[in-house]
């Protein structure tokens, strides 16, 4: 008889990293949100509420770990549909904040269904891909895979919340891991590169560069691969794409999205308006130096110069008050967590667990990457929280669910055969 106890099979390494990140996050939220004259612990403040969220995540974890692992696989479709219904419900009952309708307001607490949908999509995707019949070289299965991801993306884009939508799109990496033909990824990658290139460089030069690359390829390729139609298709498609970038940029993107891209590439931006957030964020991080200004000593943090510092911009506090050393510690903790999850995923005996583990790693990585790179002018500003770190119940709990469902599946692997 195998050991049935969850506690003895649980991957405590992951739990330890998770706890460390959550506590570090709270310490930084505390620093951003205490008043200058700190007298009593205020449960109405951000740090107080976050404390409650953290404490409440303990029973949540217990519940997740107590549920039979089979339930998650069996009811994955139900979770998915539930998530879709909640997303649709937003259009009727949702609260609109800053033009985005992505919250349910319940008293003073908010609830963001797109956060929880990440678990729903991951579960269904894992379930679908674990079906032995599903073979991703086949277009039909590809399309269903895309649809599982694409449906919630569509609903989220309508809110509109491009940041969250992007997180879901990153799950294509999982499809790739499970056998999606390579060219999807390459096409996507090249499209992104071309998009930014076209914004920065004259289209004619890019087209010239593409022609040169094709000539180079033609000379090097085996005769059998020299397919003139393929060259033509690639050439026409990329040319059209490049020429359409300006149009898309001017007419499809929202003004604030255009600003965010402009801010990234231009040095000549209005630091009082569209350039303010990024500038203040860079000042906070950059002024931290090697070891930072010290806990609760950050002038940018205390002065409230960085907007939304307790949520999406929480890492600026780390940078300012803990410096390069502290930032590195946090980043390495995240990376360790990601590798641990990938390692555990590869160890899984069922495809369901493995795919789900990959989904968790991919989602966490995308959040981590987008959140931090947007603060240091490596990526356009996209408002996504830093997992486990950023203030917010929906965010903390949804990441907790996402992670601990996987830990439950992992703990259960001894029962699989």
């Amino acid at each position, binding site marked *: 008889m195998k050991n049935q106890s969850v506690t003895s099979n649980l991957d405590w390494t992951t739990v330890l990293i998770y706890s460390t990140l959550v506590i570090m996050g709270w310490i930084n939220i505390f620093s951003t949100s205490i008043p*200058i004259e700190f007298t009593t612990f205020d449960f109405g403040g951000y740090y107080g509420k976050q404390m409650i969220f953290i404490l409440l995540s303990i029973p949540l974890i217990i519940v997740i770990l107590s549920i039979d692992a089979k339930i998650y696989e069996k009811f994955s479709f139900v979770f998915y549909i539930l998530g879709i219904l909640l997303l649709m419900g937003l259009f009727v009952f949702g609260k609109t904040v800053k033009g985005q309708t992505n919250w349910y307001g319940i008293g003073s607490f908010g609830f963001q269904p797109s956060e929880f949908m990440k678990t729903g999509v991951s579960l269904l995707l894992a379930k679908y891909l674990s079906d032995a019949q599903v073979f991703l070289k086949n277009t039909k299965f590809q399309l269903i895979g895309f649809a599982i991801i694409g449906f919630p993306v569509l609903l989220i884009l309508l809110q509109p919340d491009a940041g969250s939508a992007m997180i879901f799109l990153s799950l294509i*990496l999982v499809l*790739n*891991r499970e*056998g999606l033909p390579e060219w999807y*990824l390459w096409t996507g990658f090249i499209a992104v590169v071309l998009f930014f290139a076209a914004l920065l460089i004259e289209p004619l030069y890019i087209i010239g560069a593409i022609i040169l690359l094709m000539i180079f390829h033609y000379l090097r390729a085996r005769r059998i691969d020299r397919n003139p139609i393929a060259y033509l298709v690639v050439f026409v498609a990329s040319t059209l794409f490049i020429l359409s970038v300006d149009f898309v940029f001017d007419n499809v993107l929202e003004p604030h999205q255009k600003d965010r891209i402009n801010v990234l590439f231009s040095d000549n931006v209005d630091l009082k308006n569209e350039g303010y957030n990024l500038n*203040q964020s*860079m*000042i*906070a*991080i*950059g*002024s*931290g*130096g*090697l070891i930072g200004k010290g806990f609760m*000593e950050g*002038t*940018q943090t*205390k*002065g*409230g*110069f960085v907007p939304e510092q307790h949520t999406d911009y929480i890492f600026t506090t780390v*940078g*300012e008050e803990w*410096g*390069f050393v502290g*930032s*590195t510690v946090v*980043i390495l903790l995240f*990376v360790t967590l*990601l*590798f641990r999850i*990938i390692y555990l995923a*590869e160890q899984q005996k069922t495809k369901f667990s493995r795919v789900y583990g*990959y989904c968790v*790693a*991919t989602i966490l*990585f995308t959040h981590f*990457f987008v959140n*931090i*790179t947007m603060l*240091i*002018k*490596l990526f356009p500003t996209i408002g996504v929280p830093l997992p486990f770190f950023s203030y917010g119940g929906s965010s903390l709990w949804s990441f907790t669910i996402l992670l601990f469902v996987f830990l439950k599946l992992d703990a259960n692997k001894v029962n699989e055969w």
Partner: protein
Amino acid sequence: MRKAILPGIIIFATVAILARLFYLQIIDDEYKLKSDNNAIKIVYDYPERGYIYDRNGKLLVANQPSYDVMVVPREIKNLDTLKFCELLSITREEFDKKLKKAIVYSPRLPSVFLPQLNKKEYAAFQEKIRKFEGFYIQKRSLRDYQVNVGANVFGFITQVNPAMIEKNPYYKSGDLIGKQGVEEFYEEFLRGRKGVKYIQRDKFNREIGPYKEGIFDTISKQGDDVTLSLDIELQKYGELLMKNKRGGIVAIEPKTGEILALISAPSYDPALLVGRMRSKNYTALYNDSIAKPLYDRGLLAEYPPGSPFKILTALIGLQEEVIDPQTSFFCRRGFSYGNRFMKCHDSGPSQLNDGIYKSCNTYFANVYLKTIQKYPKPAYGVDAWSNHLKSFGLGNFMGYDLPPGRRGHIPTSKLYDKYYSAGGWKATTIISNSIGQGEVLMTPIQLCNVMCAVANQGYYYTPHVIKKIKNHTIDKKFTTKHITTIDKQYFPEVINGLFDVYNKGTASRLRVEGLEICGKTGTAENFTKIDGKRVQLTDHSIFVAFAPKDNPKIAIAVFVENGYWGARIAGPVTTLMIEKYLKGKITRTDLEKRMLEYSLESEYAKVLSGQPFSINR
């Protein structure tokens, strides 16, 4: 391969993020600075500048509050420009100009927008200041002069310019600094030390408390009061006497080297250089290239000293033992040397005593000749002679605590070797030096210092205008005795000669009952250029003296530009100054009235008239 994609991306992203963080946090300093500019506001607390007193404890320079309108251009918001200009009574153009200047200095650091409001302007503006975001009032203290004399001694206060800020980081835009005179020389004592408070701000520019609990803050330190050696009554009297004349008076207490009066005429009221009109007034004074009120004649004017130099010729002759008091020379209304002739108003035999009081050129030409000829080569003689002179502090900066002035000039053999090729000259070639007309140049303060050394019979102290600095001792160099190369034993005979100048010599008409004054007249030829031609002007009137003869309390040098002979103007002025200082009142009211009314303006106007004119009338 597929397995490696996600880990690969993660590693790539992590390396990129860490590299970027390393650059931002460790390599690039820009953000530290930006963060300080963002969040830390520096507030200065300006201490009051130290007061200035005269030697008798009379307050000369105090302070008055002044209010500068400061601006931080970046913080200007919703400004009602029209109302703002109206309140400060400036035009829209001036506003734009000033704001632009402030932005050029720095958009985020405070700079002075409008300096030195008076109390009334301040009161009106202060009520509304809250409405003008980005502007604030900085209180400073300005000088409040209790006397209208001594401008050249005090110097003035001015705003620091960017070059000064660069040189000394203590100063920030809008700070005040002493310029010229005592204000500059004793700046570090007088200004005190401003207090600094670092205040943390939030993004709305609200102050949210001291930065780091105030560990970097400093408390302001009051400026130290300074007592000058000036006797302000004497200074006032001197400036009064020099009205409508140009020239300088230097009076020093020989026993200490303390400057009792330093007068440069024409002068100006120091109060002109205070307040909003400062720069306008300063420009006017600066541009007055005719009267040159900013030119301190007592320190800067270099002249051939003329007859007073004979004192030194005599002393050197005695020291070199080429004459004794009884040595006699015969004057035939002049002195012939080679095929040339130096005129003299005297005739007959002269010894040391009457040589001095009659100011006989022939006598001193002979003394000088003997001095130089004592040595095998004239070059050795000249160098021995110039070393004696240098021991009186001549030919170099004296090191007093005022603007450095000029060196004057004492020739050495090198100079003559250059002029006439080595060996191409002899004692007679340079005979004019004997009567102070050759290559010797002296400033009035140097001349006065020579009289101090004579009065002290062989030593002097570096002249200085400082007497006391509160909480500090004055520079040791002002209390260090400088011994001349002339032995004490040679002075009494020369002093007797100087005493007889008043008894029976060139200043006999200037005697004051009950005062034993030793003096010497002087007359110096001088030239100017008119339309590129060298034109001789009326002689400068020069007089040096000390008194009383025994236990001297004052040494003085007076020179009056184009005042003609020494006893004409400089002599009476000297006498009156000495009487004023020693007796406190004037018995020679006839002299006083004449001097107060005497004007040389017509003499000065002649030169500028463009008409031909005659001199020495």
